[in-house]
């Protein structure tokens, strides 16, 4: 079975090859063949991942850790040496399975969604490149390999968000995503420098447990952990580096599903889990603990994004803020040390959020590129399968048992509650509030889109500048099979995904938690006091979810009133605008960039560089010239005379030195 583990490189290589072929010959291959090739390569990866899973499972628990190095990547640079290699362990296999599995479904879906696009094959080249990068990210055997994939997905994210680059907003969004992520990368890179300077290596194999780190000072280990977290914040869009994700919705919808919901944004969760030893050690120490920072950033993101989501009208932006909020939950879990709970939620979230995004894409497709929920309503009649599957996603995210989201969210909240102290209870309370809001905004979305009055026949107002004037002559229609099939599969997963890890220890049904144990060695164990207290917390979470659903249904049962004004606007008053604009963070940042930041850069470029530094140079040149003008009888003013003068001066100096020597 070792042989199969050595061949793990096939998993990223397959889509990488697909990307190269499609980049070079995509135009000639054309639609739809390019789509099928891409889907084929990622499907092969999925099959190979399953084989790898079984190969790893056949090993005894403590030996489920296999490194395979392909070649020396950094060598000949003193003691800094890094291999181009892969690490197969339960964590990477889990990541690999869901990246390839969901990735394959999204590839398939895209064949229908991108139908007729002039850059059809390019799209699939990018998707394949993304999948390859993401797989390198999760399979890397050292921090630098992860960083290679990390930046690869960043590149693909740029390419895919600005896929329709003719639209200025898409081009800007792509750039914003990449630059914001670079801010996070700054932290990631510094973390790597610090790790190397302390340990002399970047290989994960040395950082499996907190006890392996030796006696490193609390300050250093906390610094490493927090710098890694800064990197994670960028990719996983945690406040305040979240600003790129809502704008990233400019990309084609399958991209939003693949990158900005299911896979890429989970890279940060993966990174923190992979380097949990640093966080664990930091959490053991006195003073500032990295985990506390992570948990609270997560909690703030979870709550803040949920409040913003309730006031969004774009079907995808609601889901974008919802993604931020759910990622916040995951970091909340990681912060309190409940890594497996965070990873569990990452997996179930990938199921239901991919479903919701693909469902929204199906709606957009069926509505002829309309994204404004105010111009939808009653669509279930026209798109029964999309509507039906979307409802499963809604139930899963709202935390209704037995759907997937209930189990994972419940585990996070319970672990937070019992993680100890006032902080744990406060994190739990924030999580509950966010859960209430989640149930509410998702209910609002379902009713605005699929139920209530049919508003799509009203001519568009065009006041919020949606690029394409929707063609309302056509009725909404259901999407083709290639699009609907992934929806059905994902809704199935959203129903049963929770059974990956059920909170019962007798018999042990925590499959995922148990499976991940070897990768998360030394992580703190959080004990839920008793079954009954855990049960009470679950009941509380369910009740909160149902309250959210009931309120949402009551408000939007009939859709929107005829004047199209959201009933929430009057209820929230002035705060409504704050939420609609996501606390004005984006507007503020844009103002800063176009204001003081631009002014400062212009000052450097004009005031300092051109006028002062270059001005001084030209000033010297001018005075030399003027002096030369005065001495014109002696000088011809030709360039070669300057050279002559220099040579003459040097010779004189030499002569002086010589005489002194004698």
């Amino acid at each position: 079975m070792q042989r199969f583990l050595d061949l793990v490189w096939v998993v990223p290589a397959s889509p990488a090859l697909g990307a190269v072929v499609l980049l070079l010959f995509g135009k000639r291959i054309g639609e739809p063949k390019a789509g099928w090739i891409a889907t084929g390569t990622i499907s092969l990866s999925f099959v190979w991942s399953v084989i790898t899973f079984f190969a790893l499972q056949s090993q005894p628990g403590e030996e489920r850790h296999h490194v395979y190095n392909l070649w020396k990547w950094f060598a000949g640079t003193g003691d800094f040496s890094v291999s181009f290699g892969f690490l197969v362990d339960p964590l990477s296999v889990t990541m690999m399975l869901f990246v390839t599995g969901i990735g394959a479904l999204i590839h398939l879906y895209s064949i229908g969604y991108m139908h007729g696009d002039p850059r059809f094959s390019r799209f699939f080249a990018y998707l394949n490149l993304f999948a390859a990068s993401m797989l390198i990210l999760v399979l890397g055997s050292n921090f630098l390999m992860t960083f290679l994939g990390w930046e690869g997905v960043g590149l693909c994210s740029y390419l895919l968000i600005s896929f329709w680059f003719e639209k200025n907003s898409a081009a800007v969004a792509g750039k914003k995503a990449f630059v914001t992520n670079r801010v996070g990368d700054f932290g990631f890179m510094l973390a790597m420098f610090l790790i190397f300077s302390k340990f002399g290596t970047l290989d994960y194999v040395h950082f499996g447990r907190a006890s392996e780190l030796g006696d490193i000072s609390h300050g250093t280990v906390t610094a490493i952990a927090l710098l890694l977290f800064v990197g994670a914040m960028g990719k996983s869009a945690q406040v305040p580096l979240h600003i790129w994700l809502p704008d990233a919705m400019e990309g084609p919808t399958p991209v939003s599903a693949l990158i900005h919901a299911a896979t890429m944004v989970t890279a940060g969760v993966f990174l923190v889990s992979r380097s949990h030893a640093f966080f664990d050690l930091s959490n053991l120490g006195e003073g500032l603990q990295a985990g506390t920072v992570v948990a609270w950033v997560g909690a703030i993101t979870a709550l803040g994004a949920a409040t913003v989501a309730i006031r969004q009208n774009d079907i995808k932006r609601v889901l974008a803020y919802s993604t931020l909020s759910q990622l916040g939950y995951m970091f909340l879990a990681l912060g309190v040390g409940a890594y497996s709970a965070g990873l569990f939620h990452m997996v179930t979230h990938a199921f239901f959020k991919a479903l919701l995004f693909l469902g929204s894409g199906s709606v957009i497709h069926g509505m002829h590129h309309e994204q404004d929920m105010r111009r939808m309503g009653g669509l279930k009649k026209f798109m029964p399968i999309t509507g039906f599957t979307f409802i499963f996603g809604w139930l899963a995210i709202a935390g209704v048992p037995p759907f997937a989201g209930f189990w994972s969210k419940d585990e996070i909240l319970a672990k937070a509650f019992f993680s100890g102290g006032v902080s744990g209870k406060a994190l739990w309370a924030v999580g509950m509030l966010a859960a209430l809001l989640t149930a509410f905004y998702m209910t609002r979305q379902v009713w605005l889109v699929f139920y209530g009055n049919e508003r799509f026949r009203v001519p568009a107002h065009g006041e919020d500048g949606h690029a394409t004037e929707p063609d309302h002559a056509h009725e909404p229609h259901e999407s083709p099979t290639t699009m609907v099939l992934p929806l059905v599969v994902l809704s199935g997963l959203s129903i049963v995904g929770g059974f990956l890890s059920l909170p019962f220890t007798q018999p042990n049904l925590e499959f995922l938690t148990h499976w991940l144990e070897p990768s998360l060695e030394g992580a703190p164990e959080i004990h839920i006091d008793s079954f009954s207290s855990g049960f009470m917390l679950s009941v509380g979470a369910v009740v909160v979810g149902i309250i959210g659903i009931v309120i949402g249904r009551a408000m939007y049962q009939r859709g929107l009133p005829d004047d199209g004004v959201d009933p929430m606007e009057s209820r929230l008053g002035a705060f409504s605008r704050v939420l609609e604009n996501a606390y004005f963070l984006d507007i503020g940042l844009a103002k800063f960039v176009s204001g003081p930041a631009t002014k400062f850069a212009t000052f450097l470029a004009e005031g300092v560089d051109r006028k002062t530094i270059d001005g001084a140079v030209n000033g010297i040149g001018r005075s030399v010239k003027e002096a030369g003008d005065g001495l014109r009888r002696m000088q011809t003013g030709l360039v070669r005379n300057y050279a002559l003068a220099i040579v003459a001066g040097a010779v004189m100096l030499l002569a002086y030195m010589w005489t002194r020597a004698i």
Partner: protein
Amino acid sequence: MIATETVTHTAGKATTMFSETVFSTEHGTRSFPVLTAMILVPLAGALLAMVMPKRRPEYARVIGYVAAMATFGMAVFLLLNFKTSQHGYQFFEEHGWIDAVGVSFNFGIDGIALFMVVLTALLFPIGLLASAKLENPRAFTVWMLLLEMSVIGVFVARDLIAFFVFFELVLVPMYFLIAGWGHGNNAYAATKFFLYTMAGSAFLFVAILTLGALYHQETGDWTFAIGKLTEFAAGGNIAPVTGKLLFVGFAIAFAVKVPLFPLHTWLPDAHTEAPTAGSVVLAGVMLKMGTYGFLRLAIPMFPRAAVWAAPVMLTLAVIGIIYGAIVATMQPDLKRLIAYSSVAHLGFVVMGTFALTTQGMQGGIFTMVSHGLTTGVLFLIVGMIYDRRHTRLIADLGGLWKSVPIMSGLFLAATFASIGLPGFSGFVGEFTALVGTFVTRRWWAVAATAGVILAAVYLLWAYQRAFTGEPEGDNATMQDISFRELVTVVPLLALSLFLGFYPKPLFDRSEVAVKDLMTHIETWTCEPDQFDENNDADGRESECYKEPVRVPPKDHESGGESPGEDSHTETDAEDGEHG
């Protein structure tokens, strides 16, 4: 009297690293003087092209291609026959010149010079091919070949006077290339370029002559051989103050060439006004004459002064990284923007070099090569755009990704390579340089890492404005890249990608030279000399420069077993040292 003894004494110690003579015999049987040929072939090509009839410009062009390709072929020969693990200089050749004062044409390359020579030989044929449509091809070819000869001369010279002659000779063809085929304000730019670098060179010349005179004063002999003078100068025969002054003399000349902030303002003008091939060569190899000068002369000759000056050099380099990036952001001209990006990239080279660590120097050398590749592509494509649209102003462009997808795609690839995306060579160089800096000069490295964010800002913003959106007017009807143009950029990008994933061939070849240089620095900052006040070894001990080395945990590649206790103790011991 004492001094003479010291010379002999120290010479014996350092021969293994810097002496010319040690390895010349090893290649004594080799008949073909390849380095001389690499200088003479372009020269012969230039002379031949000069006498071609003006009415048949294609003759000169063909001669240009043949000479440049032949030189490139010899560079490949060097690459293949270079002995990776051999210390000192290879392909060594000696030709007398002015024996009376010990000036000679000695050529030889080590791992540092090797890649500069190869890069030069690679970029010139590409530059010629990219200029196939320029007017007056005969004169253009002549100047290009003379330039190639001079640049190669700089990198292979083993004699200070020969080095200086080539170093200065470079200016002449470059001056005429900018003045003759440049755009806009080219006369101003060419003159500024010439005078600026000449001013720097004045310091260099004085320093070289002083060094020669000091050697003569001590030994009674005249020599300008780099090896001998390195042993002499580093070996404690010069008063520390004089050493520092001479270092400053060298440093100013090289800092202008690099260019290091605040001596950089000639570069944007020269780059912007130069013809495409001129910019490619200027950025690709001529700037590296400065950084090469630091590695070849300034640091090995004056290791103590280099350690002394390192904080200043690092600060200027890091300012260059950040400042270059910010100023680049606001440039309205695409070519000027790339010129400022060179200031930032070369900042990484100088930073890595003056980190005085193996990683730092290796990263710096790697970045020199990588920058030549990626910036070359950027300049080539901007040139193609200029050929078609007769403008380089970002504001005049827009939507090119739609009208010329292949050209724009290649530009985007080069953009990301330049940003330092892993997978391209730029990342390997910058990351290694940063690692090398971080271990000795943490806060400089932190500031420089911020430059990584800024690179994404200025390049992607420019790309967004010039290449995305809906093309209008002339931008919509542009012709996409031609086959000839494709041939100029694809090899460079392919190499950048290859080195991004597999940098080993380069690192391996420069490793020995860099390690020897590090040992040299560590040795000579530590040796007592006759200028020590209290003349005891303990007094020098505190000044000893020592590259920090980490003890990595025990390697266990096969999966399964958890790390043994040994790795714990090693890690602990190491951490104790640094914490």
